[in-house]
């Protein structure tokens, strides 16, 4: 292999690709060539670094300089200054929102965003080129598979996973080793392992980033699982909306086959393992295990009752073991470093780390991986940098459409499976959405219910009809037509659906409503009784008003699509509430902050 003096790592994750990182890669290669550095400097396209907010992100090694929001016109400067003359381009170096510190003299690990993290599942994301198996191999890749196949019995592998305390990262938190044991115990001529990469939580992208940044970690783990339970075939069910992840998986599977790490007689041990990709087609319910298997079989993705459990009768009627992407991403490290290394991290009942997709009203939008037991406050304020624009934090949503919203008072909750449930939410797959004072909690509840109504497969009545009824009531409330007794009706419907729905989608559908009712009941009451939206979000319950800060510049009157604004030039303007469409265009336009919502 060639030895390079410096490496330019350009993020090729979805976030940065969307803001043009592919162009940056081309330009870097071109400029490096032009400056005669092609033999000394190598450009690598990696997966997501985690700090997507700062994208497109470029990191230069060996010094670890972190450049953020890099534009095509900055490339030449980085090449001619940093790479040629060794002088950092200060104005492009990442600035920490919270501390206003630049990291010019700091190592990457010392940036607040990374300091509190421990990256196991994300160990290679943003570090290696996911389309080059040699780079994965250089990071101890496939050594865990070799160790399992050549030095461990199938029972020992299962024991190790069991002892590690690893639990399912797809949401339910079921002990992974136990699941493997059930499938191992099933006797059949054909068994399957499967990987759930259907990532349904809207606003979460942990699994996608792992597949995009380190696909081999999942492939290797599936092969280990196949050996342990006695399966020679595996299926990965990926959302079709993830084209980059699908492509990288295809490339990775092909390379693993070429290296003999997938296929027949792996490591000369007589173990055969073949892997196939199946694409989802845009149905949230297909994340549920029985629905997912029906979908792979080419049928409608409707859930069916359990038992029979998939470990007994799953895919194509054969015993099947399904794990989530992130669950798999931990396995090779556990086999390599041992169960005791892993179970020393985390809390009593939740071992290891958890990846979260931080989003919404937070400075450092992106992916973080922290030890179980880290408090919500640390994740949101230390790692995430808090809410932007000096706004006040209101709530954090965890667990997606099955989870709940937690208020400020619960920010010191250590994050693990049990604590989040006790607090009134749940871990879910790892979406973490932050809301500030401008977000209306009733509207957020309505948003999730709208999602559920959209995604309910309609097979059972409580879920199909009940969630629609709840959505009608919530819509009525945010439109200012809420009635006395609506809250009680919501609570009643929630209980019925929870107790009688067939699958997890219905059983948890009311959680966002129940948790907002628990912690933000006053907002519901203000909507219903006072016809007021405390967050000034709900259109029917607010008015745009011009204050005496108005300088009479007429900008607002010119953008108003309804002609609702009148006033003399250089005089205070006013809005006719009867004409106003509440589009907000005027408020966006006013440079003097004279227009407010009331």
């Amino acid at each position, binding site marked *: 292999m060639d030895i390079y003096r410096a490496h330019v790592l350009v993020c090729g994750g*979805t976030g940065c690709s969307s803001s043009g990182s592919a162009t940056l890669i081309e330009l870097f290669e071109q400029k490096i060539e032009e400056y005669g550095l092609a033999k000394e400097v190598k450009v690598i396209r990696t997966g997501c670094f985690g700090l997507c907010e700062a994208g497109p992100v470029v990191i230069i090694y060996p010094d670890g300089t972190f450049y953020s929001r890099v534009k095509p016109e900055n490339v030449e400067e980085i090449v001619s200054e940093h790479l040629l003359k060794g002088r950092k381009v200060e104005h492009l170096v990442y600035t920490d929102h919270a501390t206003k510190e630049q990291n010019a003299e700091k190592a990457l690990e010392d940036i607040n965003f990374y300091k509190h993290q421990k990256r196991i599942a994300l160990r290679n994301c943003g570090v290696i080129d996911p389309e080059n198996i040699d780079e994965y191999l250089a990071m101890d890749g496939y050594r865990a598979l070799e160790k399992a196949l050549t030095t461990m019995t199938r029972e020992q592998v299962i024991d190790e996973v069991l002892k590690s305390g690893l639990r399912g990262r797809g949401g339910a938190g079921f002990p992974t080793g136990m699941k493997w044991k059930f499938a191992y115990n099933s006797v059949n001529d054909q068994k399957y392992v499967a990987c759930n990469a259907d990532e349904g939580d*809207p606003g979460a992208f942990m699994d996608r980033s792992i597949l995009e940044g380190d696909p081999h970690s999942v492939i290797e783990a599936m092969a280990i699982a196949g050996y342990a339970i006695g399966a020679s075939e595996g299926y990965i069910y990926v959302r*079709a909306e993830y084209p980059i992840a699908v492509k990288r998986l295809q490339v990775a599977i092909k390379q693993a086959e070429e290296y003999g790490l997938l296929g027949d007689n792996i490591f000369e041990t007589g173990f055969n393992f073949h892997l196939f990709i199946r694409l989802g087609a*845009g149905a949230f319910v297909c994340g549920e295990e029985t629905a997912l298997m029906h979908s792979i079989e080419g049928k409608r993705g409707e859930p069916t009752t359990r038992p029979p459990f998939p470990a007994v009768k799953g895919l*194509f009627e054969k015993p099947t073991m399904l794990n989530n992407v992130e669950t798999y991403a931990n396995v090779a490290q556990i086999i390599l470093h041992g169960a005791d290394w892993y179970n020393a991290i985390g809390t009593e009942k939740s071992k290891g780390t958890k990846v979260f997709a931080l989003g919404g009203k937070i400075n450092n939008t992106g992916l973080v991986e922290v030890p179980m037991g880290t408090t919500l406050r640390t994740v949101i304020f230390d790692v995430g940098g808090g809410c932007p624009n000096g706004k006040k934090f209101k709530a954090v949503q965890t667990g997606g459409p099955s989870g709940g919203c937690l208020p400020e008072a619960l920010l010191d909750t250590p994050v693990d499976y049990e604590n989040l449930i006790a607090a009134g939410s749940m871990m879910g797959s790892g979406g973490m959405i932050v809301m500030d004072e401008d977000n209306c909690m009733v509207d957020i509840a309505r948003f999730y219910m709208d999602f559920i109504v959209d995604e309910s497969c309609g097979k059972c009545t409580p879920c199909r009809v009940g969630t629609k009824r709840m959505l009608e009531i919530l819509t009525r409330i945010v439109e200012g037509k809420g009635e006395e007794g609506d809250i009680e009706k919501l609570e009643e419907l929630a209980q019925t659906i929870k107790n009688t729905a067939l699958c997890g989608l219905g059983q948890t559908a009311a959680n966002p409503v129940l948790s907002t009712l628990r912690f933000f009941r006053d907002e519901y009451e203000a909507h219903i009784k006072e016809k007021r939206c405390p967050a000034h979000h709900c259109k029917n319950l607010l008015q745009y008003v011009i204050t005496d800060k108005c300088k009479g510049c007429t900008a607002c009157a010119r953008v108003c699509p309804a002609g609702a604004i009148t006033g003399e030039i250089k005089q205070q303007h006013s809005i006719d509430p009867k004409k106003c469409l509440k589009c907000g265009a005027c408020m966006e336009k006013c440079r003097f902050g004279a227009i407010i919502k009331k």
Partner: protein
Amino acid sequence: MDDERTKFAELEKLIAEHKDQKGALMPVLQGAQGIFGCVSEDVQKAIAEGLGVTLAEVYGVATFYAQFSLHPKGKYLISVCLGTACYVKGSQSILDKLSQVLDIPVGGTTPDGKFTLEATRCLGACGLAPVMMINGQVYGRLTPDAIPAIIDKYKNDDGEVA
């Protein structure tokens, strides 16, 4: 017409490739959606015959999944993200603005067949929220103000827009 014929020839090839595979219907429907841009009744019939399953089964699967559309979509497919991260950052107002500028409801197609407006869930670019995608090109950190200029770019262009 010739165009149709090549497309059906392509479909036939696709069916032959997958025919013996377990669970072939999904990949074939996905391929067909790619070839035709939708899975009309004729396409469903061809698939049913090719795979030896009933039309009812094909229809049942095609209507279950959001990815398959029974009617053709516009030349430019605009998908506005209504995932949670985008929603809390105001993507509803982006969608409303597009609906107003294009004068079509969400899910609708303009009469000239140029634009289809859709709402979608998380595009995975939450760091750029609020986000929309036009035929694979992602636009992030949007404000309602920025919408008309972006749409004009596509309106005035008869060829491909980069």
